């Protein structure tokens, strides 16, 4: 058999192939030759063949039949063989194959070989791809080599030990003794790898960390080494652009970070050196900046004094002005991490950050955007928003959703005026309308509802936007909803903020009907429009037209639309007397946070969004415990219902259960009225934010002169009812309950539930809190609205549950002593 061709020869040949097929053919031929050569157990050329195999493997061809051959090479005495064998093992074998375990013995032998380069090969292979079993078997050998005086081997053993520890963390202890004097080595290789080893140990085990801090006094040692590196003169061997061993410097800084974290003493011990590095490092080349970067990360993570922190942020600020985009990138990343803790310092660099929005690099833009949002506050909102809106206009689509959400959030927190807020929302909806997240729609609707004085202006602007463009669904949905609610303001031309437009009822209905038939409208949008049209039946006079539209859609193919239309139809026919009440103007909805620049409340908007889910039940997608179920209909029976049961499946017919009918008409298809009382809002809310609930001017009519009454007074818990008449609908009585606790312990998990007779309708809003503080220190308030169209005597059954001194308490009571004025 002729000698197998040489590696370089093969490479040359393969590269002459002009097509993939030609190459494949050559490879196959060569593989066949190699395979038969392997079968012949040819020792001489095994090395050459495996090398060729590795080349072909790199091109992407299978080479598994060479795995065993690698093992044979490793076992060979020739250094050349071993070199290729170990390389092959690292490329072809991995811990998934059982074959790799056969290496263990070879490696063990080679770790004790007389030639250090063989030992080096073994250490390298073990440290690169050793499996846990191999590591367990060979840890002892590695540990031995960690103590050798041969620095060539010592440095490799240190990194090998790192790998062992990563694979088998329990073995960490055994390497501890060997680390004793690692740092007293002069050899930089050993120093570097030792620092890596120590870092790994400290990161993995808090015990190790404190051991190294206290017993070994690691920090002073590291400080000393770092100082020497900086102060010593030019050392040609380790110099990189005038800096002495930057790799080691960076590694030491990283270990210092871990040692100084949450430890005052260590942090203090390293203060000086950090300041020194921060001020003395050359910044003209990347290598200097790499060290500065690591220094900044360390300063920000340890308990450094404020002067040092400011120094660090200023370094980052300088980075932002650097021509090198890599430097700008890391600066923005770091600033993003520190903006929460060192907000003021970062604010100083705001204009530079905003400039980065115009950068060409997508990662830099993204970071600049995130950072900009983090820096927005009450003072800079107008200026920042201008920049951010400009960014929104011109940025890539991948950013638009996040940017839009960010704009909404910022606007909500810091809007200087309601008009500005609405304008900003409009701008986002019109420029990036299709990228706006789905949950923004309910949030916006709530926002608009609560800006009572802006209703006319808002609906006008939205209407005009619709005339221009109906393709952006979120915009269309919000607009339909608003027109449905405030259409009367639109046609009556009541706008104060800008020139009122002249529009007739028919024109408005044309637009809404247009949405229904347009191809561009999503099914959800159609639902919005239909409901909006329906609502206009109480606000417009062209009721007949609306009736016609509604009845047409009673036979729509879209089940959702059909259902709505059929039910609305029923509303016209059988329940016309209820129609005004049901379709009346939406009250102000609760929010879980105020509009001020106060603390960031995580639930802001999130919980509210579930209220306006336009998807009809039967499936309840949100847990009812969102605390914002505005519709809580217990009507229909006197039995107090169980908390949070799922809604029974909805009957599709028009004359269905009254409960269900009213359930989905209320809020353009709100989530099901969970026939349970409203659970409390999240406990994390400081009560004072929610006190606004009871004092919110829900209704214009206050103090109608109906005397309050005590509904319940037992075991120290007293519930008082205060009355109001609702305007515009006199059939609705508004009761605010005040619950107080005269005992010496708080009543927690307080839940108030109520049920009324069949002829009434009940609506329970969220309570102000679910803790009734002891000793009458405060009240829990909750609003009940009762619809009493038949003017019957009001009766109510209430159920109270709370936890008192650790045990649950429950009580039922009848309330019959309502003053006549409350229901007449």
């Amino acid at each position: 058999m002729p000698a197998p061709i040489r590696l370089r020869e093969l490479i040359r040949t393969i590269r002459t192939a002009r097509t993939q097929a030609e190459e494949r053919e050559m490879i196959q031929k060569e593989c066949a030759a190699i395979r038969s050569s392997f079968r012949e157990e040819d020792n001489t050329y095994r090395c050459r063949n495996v090398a060729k195999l590795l080349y072909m493997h790199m091109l992407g061809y299978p080479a598994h039949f060479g795995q065993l051959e690698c093992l044979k090479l490793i076992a060979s005495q020739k250094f050349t063989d071993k070199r290729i064998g170990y390389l092959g093992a690292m490329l072809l074998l991995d811990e998934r194959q059982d074959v790799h375990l056969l290496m263990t013995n070879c490696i063990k032998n080679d770790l004790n070989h007389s030639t250090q380069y063989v030992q080096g090969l073994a250490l390298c292979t073990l440290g690169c791809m050793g499996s846990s079993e191999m590591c367990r078997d060979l840890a002892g050998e590695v540990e031995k080599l960690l103590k050798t005086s041969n620095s060539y081997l010592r440095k490799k053993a240190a990194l090998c030990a790192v790998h062992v520890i990563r694979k088998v963390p329990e073995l960490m202890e055994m390497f501890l003794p060997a680390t004793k004097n690692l740092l007293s080595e002069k050899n930089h290789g050993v120093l570097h790898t030792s620092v890596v080893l120590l870092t790994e140990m400290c990161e993995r085990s808090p015990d190790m960390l404190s051991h190294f801090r206290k017993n070994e006094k690691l920090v002073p040692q590291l400080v000393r080494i770092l100082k020497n590196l900086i102060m010593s003169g030019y050392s040609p061997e380790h110099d990189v652009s005038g800096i002495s061993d930057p790799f080691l410097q960076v590694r030491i800084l990283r270990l210092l970070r871990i040692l100084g974290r949450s430890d005052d003493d260590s942090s203090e011990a390293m203060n000086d050196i950090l300041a020194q590095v921060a001020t003395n490092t050359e910044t003209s080349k990347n290598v200097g900046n790499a060290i500065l970067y690591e220094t900044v990360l360390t300063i920000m993570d340890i308990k450094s004094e404020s002067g040092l922190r400011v120094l660090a942020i200023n370094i980052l600020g300088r980075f932002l002005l650097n021509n090198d985009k890599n430097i700008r990138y890391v600066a923005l990343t770091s600033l993003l991490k520190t903006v929460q803790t060192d907000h003021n310092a970062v604010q100083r660099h705001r204009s530079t950050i905003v400039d980065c929005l115009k950068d060409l690099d997508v990662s830099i833009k993204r970071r600049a955007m995130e950072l900009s949002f983090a820096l927005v506050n009450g003072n800079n909102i107008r200026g920042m928003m201008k920049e951010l809106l400009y960014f929104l206009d011109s940025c890539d689509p991948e950013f638009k959703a996040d940017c839009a959400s960010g704009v909404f959030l910022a606007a909500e927190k810091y809007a200087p005026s309601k008009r500005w807020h609405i304008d900003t929302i409009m701008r986002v909806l019109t420029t990036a309308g299709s990228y706006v997240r789905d949950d923004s729609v309910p949030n916006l609707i709530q926002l608009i509802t609560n800006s009572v004085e802006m209703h006319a202006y808002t609906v006008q602007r939205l209407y005009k936007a619709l005339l221009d463009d109906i393709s952006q669904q979120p915009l269309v949905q919000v607009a339909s909803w608003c027109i449905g609610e405030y259409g009367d303001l639109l046609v009556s031309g009541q706008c104060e903020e800008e020139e009122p437009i002249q529009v007739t009822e028919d024109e408005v209905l044309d637009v809404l009907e247009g949405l229904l038939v347009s191809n561009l409208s999503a099914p959800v949008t159609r639902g919005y429009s239909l409901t909006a049209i329906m609502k206009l039946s109480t606000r417009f006079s062209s009721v007949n037209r609306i009736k016609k539209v509604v009845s047409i859609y009673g036979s729509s193919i879209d089940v959702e639309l059909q259902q709505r239309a059929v039910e609305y139809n029923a509303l016209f026919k059988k329940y016309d007397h209820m129609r005004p009440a049901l379709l009346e103007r939406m009250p102000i909805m609760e929010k879980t946070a105020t509009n001020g620049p106060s603390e960031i409340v995580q639930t802001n908007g999130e919980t509210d969004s579930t209220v306006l889910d336009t998807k009809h039940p039967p499936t309840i997608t949100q847990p009812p415990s969102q605390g914002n179920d505005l519709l809580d209909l217990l009507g229909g029976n006197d039995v107090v219902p169980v908390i949070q049961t799922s809604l029974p499946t909805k009957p599709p017919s028009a004359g269905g259960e009254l409960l269900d009918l009213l359930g989905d008409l209320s809020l353009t298809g709100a989530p099901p009225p969970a026939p349970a009382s409203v659970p409390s809002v999240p406990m994390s809310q400081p009560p004072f934010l929610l006190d606004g609930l009871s004092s919110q001017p829900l209704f214009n009519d206050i103090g109608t002169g109906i005397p309050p009454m005590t509904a319940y007074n037992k075991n120290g818990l007293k519930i008082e009812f205060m009355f109001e008449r609702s305007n515009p609908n006199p059939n609705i009585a508004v009761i605010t309950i005040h619950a107080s606790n005269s005992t010496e312990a708080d009543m927690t998990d307080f839940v108030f539930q109520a049920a009324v007779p069949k002829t009434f309708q009940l609506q329970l809003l969220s309570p102000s809190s679910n803790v009734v503080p002891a000793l009458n220190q405060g009240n829990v308030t909750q609003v009940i609205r009762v619809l009493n169209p038949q003017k019957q005597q009001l009766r109510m059954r209430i159920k109270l549950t709370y936890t008192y001194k650790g045990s649950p308490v429950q009580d039922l009571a009848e309330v019959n002593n309502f003053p006549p004025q409350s229901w007449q």
Partner: protein
Amino acid sequence: MQFMLLFSRQGKLRLQKWYVPLSDTQKKKISREVIQTVLARKPKMCSFLEWRDLKIVYKRYASLYFCCAVEDQDNELITLEIIHRYVELLDKYFGSVCELDIIFNFEKAYYILDEFILGGEPQETSKKNVLKAIEQADMLQEALSYHPRSQIP
């Protein structure tokens, strides 16, 4: 470091070093993805990009892309220096290294890498020491082998 890839402008892999255990199929998939992503970058963009939960640091030297995947807590700027150091080592060894050198002597490129980096971390920060070790090992390769034909693959 989790892995290092060297590839040409056409996307041909010239060297792949993995420091995490993965199957061949996984390695192929990852390589393909990373190569595609890096090749799609425009020249004005920075050398770092986020990919899955890793950071990719890459730099182009002539016709070759040097690409490292590092973890979140690793310093990207020093990784660029690590890449540069490796290129310097290759340059010194081969004498004005070019892509062809690495194609035809890939095993040597691996040997050099393995003397510079072990388990994903630099083991030797002195250029001189790395090159010296390679030189010695090369000499050992020649000295210990007696059969002329098996001397160099």
